[in-house]
């Protein structure tokens, strides 16, 4: 019985704080995406108009984000039935957008206006009980072009 209550408590805490944190994070991401809208990211390898380029520099951004308890349980249930695991989709979306923003921040600090050859890399770093993914790391890097 006590175990069950702890489980319910964790579910509740995870739901409340997880939703709150995610909501806040998405708001902050949207705000900063507007702020950095003028910094363009391309997966194109060769920057156009090379004669006007004065410098290139490697810029990186990384973030490790953990999933909350409620979502982990709901994803576990989802894995019984199959289908879209929405809980993990939003986790990965948050992580990718955050990592790209951090890279853009670095590019702005170096005075660059665009980033070329952007590569994204995702890895799961912790595995919780039952071999479920607990948190993901997203690492993004590219070449900032200073004109």
């Amino acid at each position: 019985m006590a175990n069950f209550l702890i489980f319910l408590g964790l579910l509740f805490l995870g739901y409340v704080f997880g939703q709150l944190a995610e909501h806040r994070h998405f708001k902050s991401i949207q705000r900063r995406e507007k702020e950095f809208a003028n910094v363009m990211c391309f997966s194109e390898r060769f920057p156009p108009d090379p004669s006007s380029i004065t410098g290139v520099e490697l810029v990186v951004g990384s973030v490790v984000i953990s999933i909350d308890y409620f979502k982990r349980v709901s994803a576990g249930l989802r894995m019984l039935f199959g289908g879209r695991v929405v809980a993990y989709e939003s986790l990965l979306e948050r992580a990718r957008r955050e990592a790209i923003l951090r890279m853009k921040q670095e590019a702005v600090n170096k005075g660059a206006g665009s980033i070329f050859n952007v590569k994204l890399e995702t890895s799961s770093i912790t595995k919780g009980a039952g071999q479920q993914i607990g948190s993901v790391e997203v690492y993004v890097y590219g070449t900032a072009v200073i004109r």
Partner: protein
Amino acid sequence: MIITNIEIIPGRTVVKHLGMVQGNTVRAKHAGRDIMAGFKNIFGGELKGYTELLQESREEAVARMVQQAEAVGANAVLNVRFSTSSITAGAAELFAYGTAVVLE
């Protein structure tokens, strides 16, 4: 030392290719960070300790790559790639590699 992940540096020409250079590091997280991460696994959110750890490790991998490039007499590393692999449950290897070249 110019480090970039594109294959050419606009406005500069490559005089000499010196082959591939690489740098790696294997890091483990300490127990305190693991416990904090355990709490975060309930509430969700960013694990700042891990972000920092991985960032530092990547910087070290790049520094080792640069060291190797300097040793062969390069002044730039082009086409840099990063890769991560987890070796055991507690440790990760971070690997950076690229082509060492001499620019004019």
